[in-house]
Structure formats: C-alpha cells, structure tokens
C-alpha cells in the first residue's frame, strides 16, 4: 500500500467520524486533533476504524506519537510494511 492509499484510508475513516472534514485543508505537519476537533472518543473511533479497515493494531502506548497527519500516515505505512 503506497502513501496515497494510506491517506485515502485515513480520509475514509475520518469521514465516518467527522464528515465535514476536508483532508486537503489540513496542515499535515500541525497537530491533527486541534485542527478538526477530535475528542478522545473520536480519536478512539479513528484507531478502531483503522484497525477494522487495515487490520493493524495500534497500542495505546503509541497514541502519543500520533500527533499530526504526517505522524499518522508514516506510522500506519510502517505498520503495513
């Protein structure tokens, strides 16, 4: 799965949680949750959505590393290697 497919997957999961979000308008290097107003339940649903869609397991101890969209994309990309 290449970077654009990872991005598409993240966009599709996010669309189920925050339908109004336009991924293109997000600064991928700035904290994601501030930009699109994700609370802890939304963030958990994002992790669950990625798990169900891509069959990757993201331990809670890794949440702190997933701050920006870039972080999330490279983390998910590495998990899929």
């Amino acid at each position, binding site marked *: 799965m290449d970077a654009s497919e990872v991005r598409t997957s993240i966009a599709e999961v996010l669309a189920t949680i*925050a339908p109004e979000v336009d991924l293109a308008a997000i600064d991928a290097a700035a904290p994601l949750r501030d930009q699109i107003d*994700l*609370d*802890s*339940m939304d963030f958990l649903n994002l992790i669950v959505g990625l*798990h*169900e869609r891509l069959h990757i397991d993201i331990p*809670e*101890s890794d949440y702190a590393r997933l701050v920006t969209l870039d972080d999330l994309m490279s983390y998910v990309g590495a998990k899929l290697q």
Partner: protein
Amino acid sequence: MIEFKLPSLGADMDRGRLLEWRIKPGDAVKRGDVVAVVDTSKAAIDVEIWQDGIVDALLLQPGDDVPVGTPMLTLLGAAVPITGAAEVRASSAPATAAAPPPPSPPRPFASSAAAAASDHRRRISPAARKRAEELGIALERVSGTGPDGAVTLEDVQRAAAPKLQAATLEERLSAMRQTIAAAMARSKREIPHYYLATQVPLERATEWMLRVNAERPVTARILLAALVIKAAALAARRYPEVNGFYRDGAFHPSPDVNVGIAISLRQGGLVAPGLLAADTKSVDEIMASLSDLVKRTRAFSLRASELSQPTLTLTNLGDQGVELVHGVIYPPQVALIGFGKPTRQAWVEGNALRLIPVATATLAADHRVSDGHRGALFLAHLRDLLQAPEKL
C-alpha cells in the same frame, strides 16, 4: 383498556411529530418495546411503551404534530396467562374483569400461506385491489380503515405515500438552539446555583487504564470518561440530594442514578441523553453504553427514556478542552458535574513533589435542595473513588 400517551421527552420539549408506527393493531407489546418514532428538535426519538399488552387502536397518523400527553394508542391488558395466586384472585373477581384472551388458533399453514389465507378473508375494495396491483403494494401490509377493517382505495394510497422524513439538519439545529435557550434561561432564572471545585489527582486512574488497555484489543479499550461516569454515579448514590428532580416546589430524589452525558454535536448544539442506571453498571458496560450513546446522539437517534430520565448531568471536557467549567443545571435536575481536561501538574503528597496528571472536578448544585457542605462531601467522595479505579 389503557391509553398510552406521548411521554415527556425532557423538560424542554413539549411537542413531537409522529414519523412512523413500529407496531399495528393486534400486536403484542412488552414494556420497553419501541412502538413509534417521534421527531423532535433533538433527535428522531424511539418511543418505548411502559407496559405489556395488545395494541388495540392507533390514535395518531404519521405526520401529526402533537403536545406531550396526547393519547397515542390504546392497549388491551397483558396477554400473559395469569397463574398461581393471581389466578385465585382472578377467579373470584367479578364477571366484568377482563377474561384472558382465547388461545390463538393453531396455524396449519406455512406463514406465507397463512398470510394469503388471511388476505382472502379480508375485505378489500376492487378499486383498492386494482391500485395495489398497479403500485406493486403487498395488500397484507396495508391496514384497513373501511367498514369491518376493509381496505379502501385511500388506505392503499396512504401506504404508497413516501415515508415521512425526519427534520433536516438545519431545521434541527435551529430548533435545538431554541430548546437549549429555553432550558438554560429557565435554569438561570429559577435555580439558585452554587459552585464548588476540587483538584482530582489522576495518576492511579491513568496508570490503571494504561495497564488494562495494553492487554485489550483496540475495540475493547476504555476511556477515562467511563471511570468518571461510574465514580460520579456512585457518589450520587451516597449523596442523594444531587440526584433527582425539583418539581412543584419540592425536591424528589431519584432511586435510580441516570447520568446525563453532555454530548456536543459537530455542527454545534448539545444533547445530554441519560446513561441509565450508571451506578449499577460495570466500567466496561458504561464504556459500551457511552460509545453507543455518542454514536446515536450524533446520528440524531435516541430513545424517549434517555431524554426524559437523566437525574443529574455530567459534562466531561475531555483531553482537548479547558480545565474548568461552571455548569448550568439542566432543569428539573438539581446538579451538574463538570470534569476538566487533565493536565500534568506539580503535586505535593506528604513531603514529596511529583509531576502527575490532575483534573478539576466542579459541581454546580441547586441551593434550594442542598448546601455547600454536602456538595463538598459529594465532590470529595467523587475524587476519592477515582483513587481506587480498580474498585469502580
């Protein structure tokens, strides 16, 4: 015969518009079954019936917009066979007492054959039959309103009409703004609020959660909010003056602790449906209920009991919010608990200074019902309960 009325949908909602019936005359219903869907400013609400019985007649048509308390349907007594002691009493009761319904006849046919047979027995006007064929409508699903329950042309036309739509998002948000305005204005006008706050160290709670979640699949993880809800519910059980309703000049404590969870909508607006009997649920059950409640609130699909029964409200500002909230009580409730964003702080314990996560818990309570001293004991108990998360 029992009349079932449109139940209260929360203090600030006095009307509902019937969207659809989920039952038809002759159906047996049990307490808690959803009988209708009613649209309000907050959600399309599943209306649950409060007792067992057989549906006799439907008194409203989809599309009817009626005040709370309007009779919706009539119900015949429970179909459950009477046994034991009740039977003795029933047999000595006067002859006017309701007789148990006759046993249903055996059904020798497969269900489709039975449906066809009943269709033949029903009276259907030729025009109705012709129109139903043209429209491709199954006649067994059309309820008749003509003489002897005959299906008329009008019945077929009604069955063919497109389903009523719930309000649009814009209509809903505008109506919701008005209901929030009415409830909050009433709260500030009538309720003499007092406010308290306390710092809650969360080192044990977060460590316990990390440990528990590390062993769990992502789909079974719990959030801090679930622990806070459970602690609040247990504390409310010990200090009943924060849990209940102020009505007609007096406080009515509630035997159940139904924690209203303030859930913000992404498009703006707020709903606080109840997580019912939170004090009797495990943390895992609370987490599952919370997740379900947030999803359904944001999809505008709630149950009437969830809107009418919260006995106190919790607003959890989460990890992206601010540190402290002075709540506005949702009438006729008498208290609102706020839980702020946990932040890392220098904390003195004995002679040691350590860096730990701390959140500020607040209480807004009704001074007609309780005083600051009891409110303080309630908040302190909530704080202490969160120091032993494994016991929640």
